Structure formats: C-alpha cells, structure tokens
C-alpha cells in the first residue's frame, strides 16, 4: 500500500491531492483557501487541508508527487531562447533569473515549502511529465477498464497535445505534438486579442461564440494553423508573439484580423463575436480529428479527456454528438489543478488494481473532494455571529428550498464537501428557477456582477435528462454541451432577425435561463447514487413544478474564487441579491439578517477576471 501527496504549483491554479492506495482521499485548489483566484503560489493551505482530511502527517506518506518535470521544462525555456535569438532578449531577461534561481529546481522548492509546514519529515519528491499527469487524471479515475486518452492544453514541458492508451492501471504513451504548436495557446491568443484574460477568459470567448458567425475560420485555417487530416497541426508562429514576450499576439495578427485587439472592458463589437465563433469552430474541427485519430490508434470505443482545452465543453459535446466514441469521460479538474491528482494517482496506485470500473463508476466521488463543514461547525459560526436562521431536517430543508426556488427566489446552496476543479457542481452553488425568462440577466447582473451574455448551466435529474437534452450519456461534471430536445424548444417572435446580444432577450425554450442562443446548454446530470442531496432537491422541485431542471452557477461573484467556508458563503450572500442561503441544515433569509456593513467598496478589491 502506498500513499502520495500530489502537488501542482507555480504556474496557474495550484492544487494539492492526497491518494492512498489508489483511493482519492482529498483534493483542492489553493485559491479556495487563499482567496486569490487561480493562485499560482505553492499550495501550502491546500496541502495542509489534504493531510488533515486524511488524518496523516507527511511522515506517513510514501511520496510527494510533482505534476511536471522542472528540468525538462527548463530545457524548453532554453531552447526557446536559442530559437528566438536575437529577438527574445526581453523574455530572456525576465525569465532566466527565476529559472536559474529556483524554477529548474522546483521539486526541491516543493520539498522545502512542505518542510516549512512543520507537518513531519518530507518523503521523496517524484516528478512526472506534465502530460503524463494529465493523462493519469483522465484515465485512472475514469469508469472504463480501458480507453483512448487525449490531453490537450497550452504547454507543459514540450508536449501540448498527447495521445495515450489507458489499460488496467497504466497509461501508455503513443504520440504527441510539441511546443510552440499548441491548441491551448491558439485559443488563448484569441482570448487575449478579444480583450479577455489569458488562462481564465477562455470561457468567456467560448460563451461569445454562438453570437457570432465564423467568417474568420478559413483565414485561421489558411494562415495560422496547418491541420493535417489526422488532427496533428502546426501554428505559423510568425503571427504570434508568445515566443517573444508576455503578450500573445502582435502586429501580423492585427493586420490579419482587422485592427488592434479589443481593450479589456471595452464594448464588444461584431468582430469579437465573429472571432470567437471562428476560433471555436476551428478548435472543434481539430478536436474532432484528434478524437478520430485516438479511436483509430487505440481501437477503443471510449475516450478520456484532460488538459485545459478539455474544459471546452462545446468541443467535448461535438465529439459526443458526432459519435466519434461511444462514450466520453472528462476529468472534472481538466486544467493544471488536476495534474496534482494525476501525479498522486501515478505515485500511489491501488495494490489490487483499479476496481471501480467493474462497478460501473468513476473514482471521483462526484468531485466532492474538498473540505466539508458539519452542522455543529455551522451552528457555532451562526451563534458566534448572532445570525438569524432556522434549523431544518434534511427532507424539510429540501422541500422548503424547492418551494422558494419555485417562487422565483435565488438560493445559495452550501452543502457537503467542496468540489475539486473549476466548476461548482451543487455543493457550492447558487440555484434558481430555469423557467423564468428574466433569471439569466437577474443572476448575471444582480448576483454575479458580470457580463449579461454569459449563460448559465442547468442541473437535471439524470433520469429525466434525455427528455430535455440530446446527450446520450451521463454528464456528471458539466463538461458536455448538448442541444435541447425539440419538445422543449420555443421560437420567439423576431428571433431570426436579431443580431449579436439582442438575441439574448428572446425566449427560446421551456427553460430559457439555461438555454444558449443556439439552443444548447452545458448540462450536469445528477444521479441519485452519486449526489443524493442535490438529487432530492431536484426531485422536490419537480414535484412542485413538473420541471426537473434548476439553474446552477458557482457560489461567488465575478473575479472571486468559489466560496469555501460558511463565512465565505455568508459574505457572498450578503453582498449580493441572493434571497436565501441553505448552509448545511440551516436556512437563512435575507430579510431577517442584520444590516451588512463593510468599510470601502468590496468590489474594488476583487480584480477583474
């Protein structure tokens, strides 16, 4: 029996994960504890949490597993310098000192930082390849005995896209594409060019795409990326600037796409909608070809996905829709946070092998791998702060919340263990009634304080999913986009003629708050065995309304990490127009709460996302 603490750190969205004999005991991102969104710092708080959850000290572990190979990454940095000289001095000056000082010895830095936690002697640190960690996180916890595995991201060491064959308890490498040829970086370049933040604004670009027409797609195919029939591709790096510095795109890119980039927060124009639609279309085409190659090379009928591009749930949905594979499973923490989990799974495999596929289940526990707060702890918090509340039995709470949702109230839903990965999956969520046409803009502007174009996602009873969505398989982690069934669609008057954001205002279905302009939705299916509490709430809502669907969005405001503790949840509840808060077994109503005062404007403190 072996156990390991997995760490991903120093780039984007650091995380820790603890695996004991192949079982995932705990996993969490540092941002939730530090309250710094996508915190790249060493995940000291997340690591300490994982050890507490497991009830162990560092001494008891066999390995610390680091999610990439710093030396190999350093090679890539050096070769990039040699490849770009004499034009890359600015990057050289910026990155070389930190690489020489500590980054090439990141594994030693991890050991040092763990030692400083004072939680026992640090076991040996093993490093895996970045894509090996992604591949392990995609396949090992998946519900399949064997599968094709595809990892697509920005870049780790050299690999940017990699193909693997998952069998029993191993992932075997087959082929890869290397830096600077990267689908993740292509998408990020457009994210940057459209005025959004690289590494977090990609979601917004994907959300914009359905409002535009892909009129730049052929230009992208002709000039920016050469894609072979087998899905392998190369970028023409003359159009990109990421090899030379901090920004993604330069003048050549501007000349190709009608002028300078959109400044952040500037008004969105037709061009950005069309750019988003174009790069999204090309991304989907490449992902489909990669998936077909994965199927041919492995002969498998199931696909596992990870890497940041696997968070593109529209592209994932296309792979399912086109029937390239019989079934697809996406690691919920598909980004680099999930690398911590993959590395830990590689370092601490189950002595008896992977047994969960035989039971037809994945090993992610619904991604509920973070901290939980029992009712005693919540009671103490409420009493300490004199917060008016009602304590209810679980069935009663569920019925009461369902009734409030049916009346159009917005409810903060804080239950169970916190989710691992970027999405709230019904444990740290804000819920609403999807039948209400005004709900999308109410939730965007009064609760999340974000752009009105951003759609919300539905959660649906797994047994009723097919009645609403053309999905054909489970989607427990909200990483597949599916079209609404014809029966649920409604055509609004004037919808055909509307352009751009005007198309938002049309009612398009029986559940307009979660229906995108193209009749698609980012679905999470809720299974009774996997997620009993959330399943009960949906069933209660259905009993009242006939509708087995709710709006689910993450419990936070724009730019802030998802809430982790009852205190975070209460703060978010009071800062926004959320009507009720279900904290474990307690229900709080906004009208009963003491007045909320804060010094200064809290919105100033939260950076733009």
């Amino acid at each position, binding site marked *: 029996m072996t156990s390991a603490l997995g760490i991903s750190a120093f780039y984007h969205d650091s995380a820790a994960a603890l695996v004991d004999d192949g079982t995932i005991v705990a996993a969490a991102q540092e941002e939730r504890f530090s309250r710094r969104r996508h915190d790249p710092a060493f995940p000291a708080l997340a690591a300490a949490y994982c050890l507490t959850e497991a009830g162990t000290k560092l001494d008891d572990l066999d390995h610390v597993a680091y999610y990439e190979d710093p030396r190999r990454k350093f090679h890539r940095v050096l070769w990039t310098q040699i*490849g770009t000289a004499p034009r890359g001095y600015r990057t050289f000056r910026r990155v070389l000192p930190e690489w020489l000082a500590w980054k090439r010895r990141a594994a030693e830095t991890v050991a040092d930082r763990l030692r400083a936690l004072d939680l026992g002697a640090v076991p040996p640190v093993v490093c895996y390849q970045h894509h090996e960690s992604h591949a392990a996180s995609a396949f090992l916890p998946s519900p399949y005995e064997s599968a094709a595995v595809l990892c697509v991201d920005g870049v780790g060491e050299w690999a940017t896209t990699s193909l693997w064959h998952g069998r029993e308890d191993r992932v075997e490498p087959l082929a*890869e594409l290397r830096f600077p*040829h990267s689908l993740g970086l292509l998408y990020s370049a457009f994210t940057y060019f459209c005025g959004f933040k690289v590494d977090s604004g990609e979601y917004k670009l994907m959300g914009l795409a359905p409002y535009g027409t892909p009129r730049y797609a052929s230009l992208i195919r002709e000039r920016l990326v050469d894609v072979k029939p087998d899905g392998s591709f190369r*970028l023409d790096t003359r159009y990109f600037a990421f090899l030379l510095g901090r920004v993604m795109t330069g003048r050549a890119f501007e000349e190709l796409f009608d002028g300078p980039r959109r400044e952040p927060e500037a008004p969105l124009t037709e061009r950005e909608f069309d750019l988003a639609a174009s790069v999204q279309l090309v991304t989907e085409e490449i992902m489909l070809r990669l998936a077909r*190659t994965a199927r041919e090379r492995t002969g498998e009928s199931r696909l596992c996905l990870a890497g940041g591009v696997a968070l593109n749930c529209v592209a994932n949905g296309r792979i399912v829709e086109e029937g390239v594979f019989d079934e697809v499973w996406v690691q919920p923490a598909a980004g680099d946070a999930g690398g911590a989990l993959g590395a830990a799974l590689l370092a601490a495999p189950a002595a008896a092998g992977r047994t969960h596929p035989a039971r037809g289940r994945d090993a992610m526990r619904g991604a509920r791998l973070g901290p939980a707060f029992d009712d005693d702890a919540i009671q103490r918090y409420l009493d300490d702060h004199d917060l008016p509340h009602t304590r209810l039995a679980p069935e009663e709470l569920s019925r009461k919340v369902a009734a409030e949702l049916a009346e159009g109230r917005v409810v903060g839903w804080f239950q169970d263990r916190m989710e691992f990965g970027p999405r709230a999956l019904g444990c740290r969520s804000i819920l609403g009634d999807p039948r209400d046409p005004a709900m999308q803009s109410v939730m965007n502007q009064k609760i999340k304080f974000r752009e009105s174009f951003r759609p919300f996602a539905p959660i649906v009873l797994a047994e009723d999913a097919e009645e609403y969505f053309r999905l054909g398989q489970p989607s427990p982690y909200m990483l597949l986009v599916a079209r609404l069934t014809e029966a649920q669609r409604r055509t609004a008057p004037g919808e055909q003629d509307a352009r751009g954001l005007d198309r938002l205002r049309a009612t398009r279905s029986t559940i307009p708050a979660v229906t995108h302009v193209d009749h698609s939705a980012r679905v999470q299916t809720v299974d009774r065995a996997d997620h009993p509490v959330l399943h009960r709430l949906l069933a209660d809502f259905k009993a009242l309304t006939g509708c087995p669907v709710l709006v689910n969005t993450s419990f936070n405001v724009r730019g802030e990490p998802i809430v982790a503790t009852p205190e975070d949840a209460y703060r978010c509840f009071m800062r926004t127009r959320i009507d009720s808060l279900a904290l474990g077994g307690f229900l709080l109503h906004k009208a009963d709460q003491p007045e909320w005062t804060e010094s200064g404007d809290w919105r100033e403190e939260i950076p733009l996302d």
Partner: protein
Amino acid sequence: MPTLRRAAAGLLLPVLYALVVVPAGLVTRLLRDPLRRRPDRAASSYWISTGQGSGDRHR
C-alpha cells in the same frame, strides 16, 4: 546583497545573451530550427511518436 546581486545580474544577462545565446541561436538555426516553427504543407502528419521503442521521449 540583493541590490548587489541585481546589479550583477543586470550586467551579466545582456553579456550572456549577446555572447552565448545569440551565437548559439544563429549556429543552431543554420542546422535546424529547434522549435520547428514553420508549417510543412507537404508533410502528411506532425505527430511525434512517443510509444514503445520510439526513443524520442526526451529530447
């Protein structure tokens, strides 16, 4: 000490870049572009094999 180090680095970095990185870059690129930057329209695939026996896993 940190100030001294920063000053030394400020002097050393341009020298290092001019005397090592730039010549290394020019010579290397005469032989082969280490980043394989240009698309090769004639190639049928860009996949690099990493499977058993490919021996190209570590560059």
